[in-house]
């Protein structure tokens, strides 16, 4: 099923022409309304009207996550605050987070993208959707929610906590669709099975998963455990949120990127050179229709490959493969994006703590775990010699990690020099 036939099946030449037209409009707009783009285009010696085709795009400078942080909180908005109706933000302490604004029309666009994605999964107004993506500052919950209402489905705004209650609702309300991170879906299976619930006998028939890397094997495991089809949804809060690309039920091979709203390029992450379509590289997204915070050539850090072969579903939009790798050190823990530098900022913020640390990421059952080993500095092991003081520091680290980054960490204080300077600061034991 296709939600928006006109745009989703648009012939590629017409699509390219539409993209160029929209690109030229957005370039003019950001150049004149966002100081950052004026500066960066001027520095690159490029004027918006010099871009006449998609191929010309390579002349434009990139925007990176660092630029988003440097312009915290509202520096990249291209509309006055009075036109902004919603704000979302990434995790992180002040100046290390990025803020994303939406105008009324942006919310409509986003809802439309989710509506397309749900319909691509065969979902209709007759479905009940159990939405276990987190509601709040994270874009997952609300993003899915608005699109689901748009197609007239019944939404259960579960968010991501209270697993036992979720299992009760899955049994009692009989939702036919579940949306969550893949690891949370597997966690539900573990908990449900432990409670003696036959997860296969639930009414669920399709699941939409995203916000973290998951491979084919995990997909198979989820499909088997719930007896459903498990589809991949792609999105980045920086760009708009979930709904930038969606796997279709007919193709089951990659996610269609909604090209009437985004231009996607793949680049060599080392050189920044644009790669031929079909080669693996870092995804770079340009928003064509976003009003509040347009992004021109945003380096996502996600490594993938574009699939240009026509899809049997009839959509003309290019597809992208599952994202299983990053070009940078960003960590995705239970769907939350975290950079080691953000953890370091938290440790530095705690008086007396020297950030000699190591992060160990693993899985406990289906869920990600984050263990933080911190060397005891002279300052915190001061004159009391008391267990209490050190435990206070441990609790403080745990609390700040939860408050600022939204992750539950386990903290272990270790002897000095046990963490070798040459050793990696991050050990990710997870396998995708």
């Amino acid at each position, binding site marked *: 099923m296709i939600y928006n036939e006109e745009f989703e099946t648009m012939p590629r030449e017409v699509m390219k022409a539409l993209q160029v037209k929209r690109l030229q409009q957005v370039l003019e707009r950001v150049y004149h309304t966002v100081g950052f783009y004026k500066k960066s285009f001027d520095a690159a010696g490029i004027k918006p009207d010099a871009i006449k085709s998609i191929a010309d795009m390579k002349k434009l400078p990139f925007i990176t996550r660092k630029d988003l942080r440097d312009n915290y909180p509202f520096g990249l908005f291209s509309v006055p605050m009075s036109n902004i109706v919603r704000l979302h933000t990434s995790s992180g302490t002040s100046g290390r987070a990025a803020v994303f604004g939406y105008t009324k029309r942006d919310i409509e666009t986003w809802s439309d993208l989710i509506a397309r994605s749900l319909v691509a999964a065969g979902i209709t107004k007759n479905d009940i959707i159990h939405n276990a993506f987190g509601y709040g500052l994270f874009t997952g919950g609300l993003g899915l929610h608005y699109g689901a209402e748009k197609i007239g489905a019944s939404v259960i705004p579960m968010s991501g906590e209270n697993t036992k209650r979720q299992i009760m609702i899955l049994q009692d309300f009989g939702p036919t669709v579940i949306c969550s991170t893949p690891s949370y879906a597997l966690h539900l299976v573990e908990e449900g099975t432990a409670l003696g619930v036959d997860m296969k006998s639930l009414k669920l028939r399709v699941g939409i998963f995203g916000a973290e890397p998951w491979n084919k094997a995990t997909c198979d495991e989820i499909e088997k455990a719930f007896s459903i089809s498990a589809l991949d949804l792609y999105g980045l809060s920086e760009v708009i949120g979930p709904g930038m690309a969606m796997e279709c039920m007919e193709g089951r091979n990659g996610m269609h990127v909604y090209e009437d709203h985004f231009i996607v390029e793949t680049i060599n992450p080392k050189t920044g050179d644009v790669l031929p379509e079909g080669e693996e590289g870092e995804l770079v997204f340009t928003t064509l229709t976003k009003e509040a915070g347009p992004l021109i050539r945003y380096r996502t850090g996600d490594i993938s490959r574009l699939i240009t072969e026509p899809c049997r579903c009839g959509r003309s939009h290019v597809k992208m493969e599952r994202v299983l790798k990053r070009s940078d050190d960003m960590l995705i823990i239970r769907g939350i994006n975290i950079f080691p530098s953000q953890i370091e900022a938290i440790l530095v913020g705690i008086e007396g703590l020297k950030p000699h640390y190591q992060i160990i990421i693993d899985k406990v059952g289906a869920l990600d775990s984050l263990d933080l080993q911190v060397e*005891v*500095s*002279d300052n915190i*092991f*001061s*004159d*009391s*010699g*008391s*267990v*209490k003081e*050190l*435990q206070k520091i*441990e609790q403080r680290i745990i609390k700040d990690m939860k408050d600022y980054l939204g992750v539950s960490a386990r903290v*272990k*204080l*270790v*002897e*000095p*020099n*046990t963490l070798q300077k040459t050793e990696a600061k991050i050990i990710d034991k997870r396998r995708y």
Partner: protein
Amino acid sequence: MKVEQISVFLENKPGSLEHATRVMKENNINIRTLSLAETVDFGILRLIVNDVEKANKVLKDNGFRVSKTPVVAVEVPDKPGGLHSIMEVVSKEGINVEYLYAFVEKSGQNAVIIFRFDNPEKAIEVLLKHQFTVIPGAKLYDF
């Protein structure tokens, strides 16, 4: 009148304590008394030694996180009510005990109790006023 205790941070893993005791053995440091506080992840080894400065230095040189902690040593007769007589006095004054440990001195007549008080100065003053024997560091190290 205060006594300096050596506090050593130890990870809760095999070999940690052995490493600390080996360093002290190799440097000819004698332990007068000690206690080990433990949590799930880590422990703190508390030591009264014959040579505080040397112990502090050699442990640090061997990579341990070490601090010197002022504690108070009180001598009481080794008989029922010995510890209680001290507690009665300090509790009345509102002084809090963070931790304590004890040993019996060589003659077997008296017990020495090592206290970490929240306010060591006041504790010493109160104890002396009540005629308790507070053992100064220099004497305790050579006990």
